[in-house]
């Protein structure tokens, strides 16, 4: 049986601009996501994460390769995939509720006003925004806006959720609160999620598996780190688990040391069609950087 989401040999080339050479953003990108799985992708700025997400969303087209979700090839945007945009993308002339209602009406055109409102209330309540339904985005804080965006994406009950650095613009405190909310909601709804983040801790808290991407241009996905910590993890207990630091060190080591050189000097036997699944949390030996970092810190 094949995976819920299957990304096969994806490549994106942007045509040359002002006479320069065409830009290959990424190549040979293969990965899978199972139903109900939460996957994060981490990589340096400009390596092509948003481009991958846009291809998954159907907003952008790959130059070659394909994406199959739930047995169907992705060709163009679909209500099956809810997107939370990097800059919340709320329509400023609509209240929070009307923003969500716009999505609900698009998903279920046959719903009458009462039913639409019921769905909006449910999802705005889910992200803790009951009482702010009638505020315009300009009257909401950054975190509240992002939560409306999340409610809007969840409200259409998509088969999969795509999040592009949803918390990038938030302060650490708000970020933590919303992360926890997202974790809770995803656990309740068994939502399949693909999320971009720059934040290693965020990835470890939220993700079941973490895709590591090398630097661009011509980036690759280098390996998959499986989060072996129990799913009941939360912000308070996360740091108390010894696995946390092993995984964290592995990720940081990749970002700091290996992401630059990986493409040109891949480890022996590297096959982009058959990515290594690593479990540094369980086995410190799998984290080559862990010792080095610990040594440097000592």
């Amino acid at each position, binding site marked *: 049986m094949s995976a819920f989401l299957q990304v096969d040999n994806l490549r994106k080339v942007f045509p040359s601009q002002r006479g320069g050479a065409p830009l290959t953003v990424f190549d040979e990108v293969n990965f899978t996501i199972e139903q109900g799985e939460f996957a994060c992708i981490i990589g340096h700025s400009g390596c092509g994460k948003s481009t991958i997400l846009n291809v998954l969303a159907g907003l952008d087209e790959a130059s070659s390769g394909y994406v199959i979700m739930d047995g169907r090839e992705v060709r163009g945007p679909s209500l099956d995939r*809810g997107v939370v945009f990097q800059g919340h993308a709320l*329509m400023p002339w609509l209240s929070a509720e009307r923003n969500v209602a716009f999505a609900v009406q698009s998903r279920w055109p046959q719903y009458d006003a009462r039913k639409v409102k019921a769905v909006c209330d449910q999802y705005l309540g889910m992200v803790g925004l009951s009482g702010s339904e009638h505020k315009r985005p300009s009257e909401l804080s950054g975190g509240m806006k992002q939560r409306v965006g999340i409610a809007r994406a969840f409200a259409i009950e998509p088969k999969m959720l795509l999040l592009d650095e949803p918390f990038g613009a938030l302060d650490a405190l708000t970020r933590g609160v919303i992360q926890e909310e997202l974790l809770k909601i995803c656990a309740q709804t068994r939502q399949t999620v693909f999320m971009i983040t720059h934040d290693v801790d965020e990835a470890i808290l939220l993700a079941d598996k973490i895709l590591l991407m090398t630097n661009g241009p011509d980036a690759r996905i280098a390996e998959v780190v499986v989060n072996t910590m129990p799913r009941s993890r939360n912000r308070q207990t996360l740091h108390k688990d010894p696995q946390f630091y092993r995984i964290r060190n592995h990720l940081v080591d990749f970002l700091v040391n290996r992401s630059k050189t990986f493409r040109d000097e891949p480890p022996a036997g590297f096959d982009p069609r058959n990515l290594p699944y690593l479990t540094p949390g369980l086995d410190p030996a799998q984290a080559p950087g862990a010792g080095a970092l610990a040594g440097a810190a000592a």
Partner: protein
Amino acid sequence: MFKSFARSQGLRAGVLSACILALVLVLWHLATAPVAAPQYADPEYARLMGGKGQTSSGLPSLPQMGTAIWKHLSNPFYDNGPNDKGIGIQVGYSIGRVLLGFLLAAAVAIPLGFVIGMSPLLFRALNPFIQVLKPISPLAWMPLALYTIKDSTISSIFVIFICSIWPMLINTAHGVASVRRDWLNVARTLEVGRVRTALRVVLPAAAPTILTGMRISMGIAWLVIVAAEMLVGGTGIGYFVWNEWNNLSLTNVIFAILMIGVVGMLLDLVFGLLTRLVSYQE
């Protein structure tokens, strides 16, 4: 605290406005007051400079002006034939023409601007024409209009049409073209159709820019109608000004100027309110 400051500033501005108005009226009064006892050495010269009861400058005095305003405004809708109509009727004619030409222009410019704004190809293809047609003084079209249409009223409406179309067209196209990609992407991921996207996303997003264009157009149309009516004659506030100038009634000319200003301000105020209604804060 800021609010009370703003209110007190509004109050102070109001007081200042009143002072400026009073100053202007006083200057006017001084400039036009009948010279009670001109102390000219030469009585002959004094006679040349104007006798008793006349103002020194030829402009109406304030009381004369006041009576004229009262006379016009107390009976604005009388109609004693082609050369003697109440000011309300004349202004009504002008507003009617402006609205007709303006609405026709809006009916063309806004849909066309929408299409141009959605299609970069059309934008580039039509831009040279727009750039050439836009700076033409609308009155330059008048002979052509009179020759082809052969009706002075329709010609003046055409002139209004042609002068108000450009700001609306350009603003609509610009507003539509610069709708944020994110919003369009939201609509795409929700599988919203083209028409619904245009009405529910593009239109509200571009509405403030479109209304600004309409406001500019209305301002220009009101400027142009006065000149157009002076040219074609018959009815309207522009014709009224010209007619009163021929009657050498400066009082009525000044009254008409005030009317033009006030009506123009009111029209602008309406569009200002409409713009406020559709504008949003990001």
